[in-house]
């Protein structure tokens, strides 16, 4: 049992940190521009595919550096030539733009790389078990993923809290007009933030690609859960996104590990009643409902605390 807890905690942390890489960019973009970027998970997918392609050409390590830069550049272009132009037509237009973009990216990726998974492998250098706890191996690559995520988290935090750029970004989060009035080029800040946010998603894609599955529907699979994370954590709040990412990562992993059902808690239903919808509900295990747990959380948090865990304004 202890083994299961330790391994599940590690897996949960890892998934949580991955979610954080994505949600940090999304939440900052949202609070600055008021745009819920539906294409954010698509940048994650682009990161994975660029990572795969560049790994084939020039190796994994240069790809780890180049792919996020490419994704970041695409993100900046989207902001500069897309969002900025639609901005004057209001948020709905911007929302629709990112919505359309998500579909366009998915189709383009499917056209270029096909719809089935590509063979994106863990680099040979990291393809060994890092350590063994209670006879279970833990892959070195996963430790590497965890390390990269934590490193980026620290860098992000330092930049935001300790530098002048971070100060302006933080100010723009809450008072964009005031920052503009003070003479800062808010447009350029937006573009940079959008680029950095996209690049973060790109990094997540490059490192998650080999561990998970790199295929054209990976954005659609991860997109909804990102929104859960940022709403749960509180829109615009980085610490909130961090906590929410870890909570959701851990919940999803532990839910899989649990076998409890109503039947095991209260005993089986009277068999004479025969099979019905009720017996199905009665016998379903927590592991089986694991995939919907985050969405359930989303509903509950919106009812109980609409601003999210650490948020300051209503969603």
């Amino acid at each position, binding site marked *: 049992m202890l*083994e299961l807890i330790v*391994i599940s905690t590690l897996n949960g942390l890892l998934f949580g940190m991955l979610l954080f890489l994505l949600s940090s960019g999304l939440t900052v973009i949202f609070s600055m521009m008021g745009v819920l970027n539906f294409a954010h998970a698509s940048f994650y997918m682009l990161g994975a595919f660029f990572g795969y392609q560049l790994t084939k050409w020039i190796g994994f390590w240069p790809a780890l550096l180049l792919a996020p830069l490419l994704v970041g550049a695409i993100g900046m272009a989207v902001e500069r030539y897309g969002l900025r132009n639609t901005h004057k037509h209001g948020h709905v237009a911007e929302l629709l733009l990112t919505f359309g973009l998500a579909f366009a990216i998915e189709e383009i990726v499917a056209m270029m790389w096909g719809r089935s*998974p590509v063979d994106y492998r863990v680099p040979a250098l990291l393809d060994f*078990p890092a350590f063994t706890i209670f006879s*279970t191996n833990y892959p070195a690559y996963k430790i590497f993923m965890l390390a990269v995520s934590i490193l980026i988290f620290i860098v992000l935090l330092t930049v935001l809290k300790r530098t002048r750029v971070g100060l302006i970004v933080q100010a723009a989060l809450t008072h964009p007009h005031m920052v503009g009035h003070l003479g800062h080029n808010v447009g350029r800040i937006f573009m940079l933030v959008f680029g950095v946010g996209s690049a973060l998603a790109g990094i997540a894609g490059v490192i998650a690609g080999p561990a998970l599955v790199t295929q054209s529907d990976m954005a659609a699979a991860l997109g909804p859960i990102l929104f859960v994370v940022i709403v749960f954590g509180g829109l615009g709040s980085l610490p909130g996104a961090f906590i929410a990412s870890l909570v959701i990562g851990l919940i999803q992993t532990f839910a899989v*590990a649990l076998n409890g059902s109503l039947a095991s808690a209260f005993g089986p239903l009277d068999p004479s009643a025969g099979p019905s919808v009720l017996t199905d509900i009665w016998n379903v295990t927590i592991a089986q409902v694991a*995939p919907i747990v985050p969405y359930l959380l989303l509903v509950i948090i919106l009812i109980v605390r609409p601003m999210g865990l650490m948020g300051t304004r209503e969603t």
Partner: protein
Amino acid sequence: MQKLVIAATAALTMVAGAAFAQETIKFGYIDPLSGGGASVGEGGLKTFQYLADEINAKGGILGRKIEVLPLDNKTNPQESLVQAQKAIDAGARYITQGNGSSVAAALSDFVTKNNTRNPGKEVLYFNYAAVDPSLTNEKCSYWHFRWDASSDIKMEALTSYMKDIPAIKKVYLINQDYSFGQSVRADARKMLGAKRPDIQIVGDELHPLLKITDFSPYVAKIKASGADSVVTGNWGQDIALLLKAAADAGLKVNWYTYYAGGAGGPTAIKQTGLDHQVFQITEGFANSGHQPAMDFEKAFRAKVNMSLWYPRAVNEMRMFKAAAEKANSLDPVKVAAALEDLKFEVLDGGEGVMRKDDHQFFQPIYISSFGKLAANEPFDEEGTGWGWHLVSKVDTSKTMVPTTCKMTRP
């Protein structure tokens, strides 16, 4: 004048082209070509295209060439019906599908209704891989024919093999949460319970179909249960990723599977280092030792660059040809009648029969294990250097399971 001649020539060519197109037998292939099932769906498509080419090269069926229409159903029953209608609108009178029994049930129902409503325009549904037993029992249809052994036939054979291995003490069941996975789990419980009551079922997992990208939480759970063997009906990425996660975690158990040989599976098994500890149950495999099958495998690999996952697809297409020639017609109603009780020498040797009562094809079944190759086994998988090795063969007569099917005949 010259322009007129060119236009006339062009028009004539088009007419000739259209006439030629009408001559082909449209064969609708409805399976996932995107999403989690795409890897197996694309493999199936290549297989059917190869088989069509093979038949076409020998003059087609009754002088008409087969044209495979690829239709992407995204492993979704609703989408499949849209695609089936598309196939019918394009002139297909034969459709084939394999991935997902939920899809198969919807298609079987759709074809049955279609044939009742449109007499004279009947459509036949050839099922090459959806193995939920209900399709040839309570939900059986006259218009549905299945070439793969149903799940209960496979589990019967698998458990008969497992019962003689005393080392199996604790079994973990992990399956996809839909009709097929549930039937695998129920059959495994029932049959293991009857044949080896001392075996303990230490886990019984159902997970979402083709949605999971990281199985490590599930593998941690299998590990914690202390299981020595895992039984799974997983297919597509669900088996490949499950094995991959097991390899990463260093899980050492014996695997009794239906589909470990699919895309990505062999690579992951090699990575686990489990030499001849992963078993699969099929109607044929590369190293079966039957010469015509091995020749076919060689030619197939040379052209398509993948191993033959679906010997049953070969049986399906060849029997389609045999039935049409027996009926001397391509009318689906006559072909269906000709298929009933049709005996056929299957690809991997031995005689199979399409049972009239439920339209289930019965054929010899093999249990094979994956590992280092012996000298007389030429085929490895996915460039791993490891391949499938014969463990046990079950003859056709021993695979006959009773059916409750009461189909409405036209």
